[in-house]
């Protein structure tokens, strides 16, 4: 039987692209988290820059809007001394009818070394990785509903920072799971790292029962879903990806699934509350919780820079 190699890994099993957490060996995930720890301390130095990507050009290709992810990728690349080129592709070539692969071919002719890609179509970063030159590396910054691997990794870094050991944890992921690439990446990462209890919490329209196939427990009742949890990951309601009446109203959603201080008391006393941002106060999370002592939403952003530095430095140091 023909065995197809994971396109993210070279023949030695080293990471050359980051496209999805699914299928990554635990050692590779752990290597990224360990390396991120090294980069976190770069923020404390007088010179907040290291020369690992000096002379390399990183192209941020955002076919879909983003502020936080694009900015943190840009900061991460700059702290690694790379030259960063931000392209608002949605407003330029693609709008003029250029195909994705033609855009990539043109940018490769400008001697790109790395593409950071966000696209509304699932699988677009895979297509780019398959067609770019061997020395070029691709990082998926979010593709459709499929994956957002650096967010998944920074969530794991955050959990490890506060909870150390993954093998005893109960993690609840709450909200609009069906539209969420973050949820899929988190679930793959949590499973890979050996978390024994993962719960997907939300209404039937947003958390279909077939998520059970991913190794999670589906809960349509919020109280049941977050009771005794060590970690609560709240997700944003993605109105832009919803078609038809999947929800009665935002107010109704908040009543049942919005995280308030009252509901948070059902979790462990030292539970942490995470959110990939941007948060919708009063829709999926109450302000008192978002700004409260359990919230680690802003540290997640800081850790995100270190995790993205780790990913970019690891892949650019490995040959195809």
């Amino acid at each position: 039987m023909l065995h197809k190699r994971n396109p993210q890994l070279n023949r030695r099993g080293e990471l050359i692209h980051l496209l999805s957490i699914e299928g990554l060996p635990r050692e590779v995930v752990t290597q990224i988290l360990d390396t991120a720890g090294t980069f976190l301390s770069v923020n404390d130095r007088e010179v907040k820059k290291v020369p690992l990507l000096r002379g390399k050009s990183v192209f941020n290709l955002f076919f879909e809007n983003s502020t936080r992810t694009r900015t943190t990728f840009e900061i991460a690349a700059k702290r690694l001394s790379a030259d960063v080129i931000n392209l608002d592709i949605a407003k330029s070539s693609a709008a003029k009818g250029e195909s994705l692969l033609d855009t990539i071919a043109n940018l490769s002719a400008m001697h790109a070394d790395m593409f950071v890609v966000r696209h509304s179509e699932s699988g677009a970063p895979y297509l780019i990785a398959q067609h770019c030159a061997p020395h070029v590396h691709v990082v998926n910054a979010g593709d459709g509903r499929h994956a957002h691997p650096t967010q998944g990794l920074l969530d794991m870094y955050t959990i490890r920072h506060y909870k150390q050991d993954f093998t005893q944890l109960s993690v609840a992921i709450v909200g609009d799971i069906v539209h969420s690439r973050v949820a899929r990446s988190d679930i793959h990462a949590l499973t890979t790292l050996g978390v024994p209890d993962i719960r997907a919490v939300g209404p039937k329209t947003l958390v279909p029962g077939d998520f059970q196939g991913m190794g999670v427990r589906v809960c349509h009742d919020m109280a049941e879903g977050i009771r005794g949890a060590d970690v609560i990951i709240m997700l944003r309601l993605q109105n832009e990806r919803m078609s038809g009446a999947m929800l009665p109203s935002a107010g109704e959603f908040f009543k049942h699934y919005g995280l308030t201080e009252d509901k948070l008391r059902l979790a462990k006393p030292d539970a942490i509350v995470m959110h990939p941002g941007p948060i919708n106060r009063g829709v999926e999370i109450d302000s008192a919780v978002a700004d409260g002592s359990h919230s680690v939403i802003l540290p997640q952003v800081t850790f995100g820079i270190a995790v993205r530095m780790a990913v970019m430095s690891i892949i650019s140091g490995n040959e195809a």
Partner: protein
Amino acid sequence: MSSLTLDAEALYAELRSGVRSLWRPGMVVMGIWSGGAWLAERLVADLPELAGAGRPAVISSTLHRDDFSARGMASGTDATKIPFAVDGAHILLLADVLFTGRTIRAVLNELFDFGRPASVTLAVLVDRGGRELPIQPAFAAAKIVLPATQKLSLARADGGRFTFSVQGQA
């Protein structure tokens, strides 16, 4: 395996007296991860003169290595931890093995990301020759010649005893 026998404990005793003569009041101690950091830790415990210098710093060459594009990101190394202000410090830098000088170059670049030291003095357990950069130690407990294909590194047993490991073809 090699027939080379190096008594790491005997060389450590040599290094200890070498460091004693290099030491000036007000100095601080820094060891290069991992062997140099072990040496720094033990010297601070063994030499009363060094006790006042406080906890030794650990410095890593990982983020400044010149072979990054060929070898990639090193995994399993510790991050640099410097518990004192680098600006104006007189630093005693410890390494287990000095070879091409490239690790020292990388470490000096790393150090200067934290500030401008007043001076850096290098003491090593073994100088194995083969320098590719103009870097010399102020003290080396031993000077030996090894083929470039052999890798010499310090190992530390559970009880803290030092040994040398030699890998590769003689």
